[in-house]
């Protein structure tokens, strides 16, 4: 029997699942890893759901839990060692996101983003999601000023890499 809270959680996650897909896109570089991280974020969201009080938007809360999972909790190597069942739901996912970018320049930009460290990836992800510096600093636990300074450095870093 599925509880009411499980029903409402699944409904909310289904509605906002794109946020999780986007986090996976920034932090992984192949479909298998994407699915794996998607699964771990979903589990962490579900485990933390009792703590969601509804005083913030579900989507805002998802950004925090999702990024925390990607940056801190997710363990890639052990997952790879542990073979996953073939019938895994995650394996049924198929999409053309990876290697789909035709534009050469965009490909290079994405490749440069992939080279950033985990924290910088988090900052650029929140920037791409149109979050302001207050939200970025609240999510990562750094000051607003430092978030801004780092964002500028990331921009310069990307520029240098792309023009090299």
């Amino acid at each position: 029997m599925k509880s009411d809270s499980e029903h409402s959680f699944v409904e909310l996650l289904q509605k906002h699942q794109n946020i999780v897909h986007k986090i996976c896109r920034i932090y992984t570089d192949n479909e298998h890893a994407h699915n794996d991280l998607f699964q771990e974020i979903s589990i962490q969201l579900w485990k933390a759901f009792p703590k969601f009080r509804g005083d913030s938007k579900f989507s805002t809360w998802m950004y925090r839990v999702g990024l925390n999972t990607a940056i801190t909790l997710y363990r890639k190597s052990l997952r790879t060692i542990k073979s996953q069942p073939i019938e895994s739901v995650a394996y049924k996912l198929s999409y053309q996101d990876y290697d789909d970018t035709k534009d050469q320049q965009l490909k290079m930009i994405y490749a440069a983003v992939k080279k950033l460290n985990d924290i910088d990836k988090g900052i650029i992800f929140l920037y791409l999601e149109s979050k302001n510096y207050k939200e970025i600093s609240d999510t990562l636990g750094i000051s607003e000023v430092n978030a801004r300074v780092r964002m500028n450095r990331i921009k310069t870093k990307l520029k240098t890499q792309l023009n090299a």
Partner: protein
Amino acid sequence: MDELELLKKDWEKSIKNYPSLSKEEIYSLISRRSSSIVKWIFIISVLEFSLWTLLSFGLDGSSEAYEKIGSYGYEFIIYPLVGISYIVIFGFMYLFYKNYRNISVTENTKVLMERILKTRKTVKQYVIYNITVMYLGIILGVIMELSSNSEIHILISDIKSKGENGIYIFYLIVAVLSLIAMALITMFFLGFYYLIYGLLLKRLKVNYKELKKLDHGE
């Protein structure tokens, strides 16, 4: 066009490329087991606590060892030490549990990392405490044997009767052997922890360092 603007535009467009999971698929996903580092830290820490508790109370507490210590007349040292050990282990377990319960994925990234590292630190301190106790055990054991074991007394007087320098060499050998035993214990556990940390916490530590650097405006 600015690179980031270009990226942002494509980012917004990319939404249509993502798969859409059905509710049934999401139900199935959340029923799976997590493989997060927090879960591994919990498992490893519980194993460490069990191992060290077994070692300190299972082996040292064997009746044979107690009888021997009793026959040497050293109960007055050993029993209070065992009592203190019980208090210390429960203290560490309480701290570990408290820190572990404090780990919450809904905190900001920096706080989450700090709490995970704090939880590990408690276990690390527990292990350091146990290794120290083990060293003290070795030293105490050697002193007890030297002062109370009648066979060793005979051996010592035998060595003394053969010449003055012999006894110094004997003590030197005992000291060197004790040091080697301690060094081996240290190397074994350092290697063991290097492996655990290497496997489990390397990425977290790198990221935490990066966040700290960022917080100092570097």
